[in-house]
């Protein structure tokens, strides 16, 4: 019994980590924007939804129209196309909806963000229809562990791919932020935007960059989800956005490692509550966890105590 329990537990960890990776990728976009301009970009979930559409369309076009058979090639091309177009969306959203409002009270860009989110949802509905789009699985198969006939742990290639791609992009982002000149400028912005501006750094450009980076990671999440789940509609951005936002807050909003940790914790919490309680309680558990963490650590798991920005 205990042996099977171990195997089941491992399977649930795998399930949770897969889900958590996706949450973490989206959560980065929330946390980076918050870290620099102190605003919650509610349209970020929609950016992710758009990237899932671009991903699904690109994959379908490559495999059925252009006849590209090599899966790694399809994957690389899709990621490239999706990152490119989604980043453009991220940049445009910032340019259109937030930059003109820079310097206005905090509530105003927030409302603008909600408006943008509704706009993008309807825009995709009009362009692609409000119905589900689905796609046959591209990457199938995986490894099985455990005794033949008994409970077997299943680790699919797709789950490994999600984990690997997530780690690659997270590492790249961390290196970029900690090592590069632009990354240093980003960190400076998050400490003191006005001061950084006074020191001759084009902060508007950096804010745009933040949106582009967030959108690029959301694009990765979108492509992975359209491969993994295989069914998308214009409304998926809302739930994913709420979950990723929760992950960002859980980990400490404004902190990049926090968003990664928050995503993984949330994914695992959902998976375990579904496994050991009941499936319908998974959101209840996830959000109760958020409330608990915030009660005892108001800045989240890895957040620094915030000094009120003047």
């Amino acid at each position, binding site marked *: 019994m205990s042996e099977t329990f171990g195997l089941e537990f491992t399977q649930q960890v795998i399930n949770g980590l897969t889900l958590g990776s996706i949450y973490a990728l989206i959560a980065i976009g929330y946390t980076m924007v918050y870290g620099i301009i102190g605003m919650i970009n509610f349209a970020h979930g929609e950016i992710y939804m758009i990237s899932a559409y671009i991903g699904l369309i690109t994959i379908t076009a490559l495999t059925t129209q252009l006849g590209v058979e090599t899966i790694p090639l399809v994957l690389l091309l899709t990621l490239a196309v999706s990152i490119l177009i989604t980043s453009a969306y991220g940049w445009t959203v910032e340019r259109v909806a937030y930059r003109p409002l820079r310097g206005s009270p905090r509530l105003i860009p927030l409302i603008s963000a909600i408006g943008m989110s509704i706009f993008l949802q309807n825009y995709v509905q009009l362009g692609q229809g409000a119905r589900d789009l689905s796609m*046959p*699985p591209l990457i199938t198969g995986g490894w*099985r562990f455990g005794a033949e006939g008994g409970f077997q742990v299943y680790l699919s290639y797709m789950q490994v791919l999600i984990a690997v791609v997530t780690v690659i992009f997270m590492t790249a982002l961390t290196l970029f932020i900690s090592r590069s000149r632009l990354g240093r400028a980003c960190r400076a912005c998050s400490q003191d935007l006005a001061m950084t501006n006074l020191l001759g750094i084009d902060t508007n450009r950096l804010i745009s960059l933040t949106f582009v980076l967030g959108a690029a990671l959301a694009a990765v999440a979108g492509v992975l989800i359209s491969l993994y789940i*295989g069914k998308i509609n214009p*409304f998926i951005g809302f*739930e994913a956005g709420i979950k990723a936002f929760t992950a960002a807050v859980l980990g400490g909003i404004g902190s990049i490692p926090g968003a990664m940790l928050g995503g993984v914790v949330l994914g695992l919490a959902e998976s375990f509550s*579904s496994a050991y309680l009941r499936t*319908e309680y998974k959101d209840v558990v996830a959000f109760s966890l958020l409330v608990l963490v915030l009660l005892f650590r108001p800045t989240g798991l890895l957040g620094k105590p915030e000094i009120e920005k003047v």
Partner: protein
Amino acid sequence: MINFTRNLLSVAVGAAALGLVGMAQAADTLKIAIAGPITGPVGQYGDMQMSGARMAVEQINAKGGVNGMKLEAVLMDDVCEPKQAVAVANQVVNQDIKFVVGHLCSGSTQPASDIYEEEGVLMITPAATNPAITERGLKMVFRTIGLDSQQGPVAGDYIADRIKPKRMAVIHDKQQYGQGIAEEVKKTVEGKGVKVVMFEGVNKGQTDFSALCTKMKSENVDFVYYGGYHPELGLILRQCREQGFDARFMGPEGVGNKDISAIAGPASEGLLVTLPADFSANPANAALVKAFKDNNQDPSGPFVMPAYAAVQIIADTIKQTGSTDPEVVAEAMRKSTYQTPIGKVAFKANGDLQDFEFVVYEWHADATKTAVK
């Protein structure tokens, strides 16, 4: 002040003129609202309902309409959302439409039916199967489809007598329709001694079911009944098969459309579905089936013929009574019998059909189905 009065006057004249035009139109057309999901995740079912109802409207108009009036179908989209259904119902009332064919999802039909009852609008749903809809003693609410309390036992009997699972799971989507039918099935199979080891809900719109699949696998579940619609079941099938959980699944008519095969792919092979008998296979409907096919429409969907029948029943009763007063029509409907594409129809006092048959089908990966009884 003078200016104001003059404006008011012109508005009044304009309104009167519009009113006259409206009345002039009302004299030779009879509007029937067709309410259901046109967009949204279950829009496919709306298509079935719309195509059936519109075909009936066309054919009745081609034969000269009803008592000299042409029927006009007014399509309304409730997205299968209870909130939106209430908005649609109010729109129907405001546009002074007296007859509704719809709604489709039980969860949206129920709140809408309250408004219709109160405002004296006659409603026939060709699709909503939750028993609660007609349990409230409403006068204006009918259906041309069976009930979950009939469909549940059909599924339950089949499971208990033919499949005989040892450890069964019942999963539902916590919606009025899905949970309602899941409970019926659970009750039936437990009455026949089948052990239900899991009874759980999932969230509408949820996309990741891997934890649920692992749990069913570790509980050694050997048969799963799912109460709900195809978007969720499609993903459950796909993710569970991927994990190597190979128990057989069964669902109600809400999962039986071709999209389940698009979502689940090969995992949809062997799925069991209870559906209304395939009326398009009935030789008596051959001419009608041909008319649908000529229009490039699929007559085999579970709600196509019930929607056709609903429109036909409204038209027949108006002809028979010579009245377009919905209350007179409703009264007459309870006493009459009709010959329709879904067979001979008579209503009970509560608005349900006297009898309606559900059949178990086996679904295939290429989106076709075969009857198994």
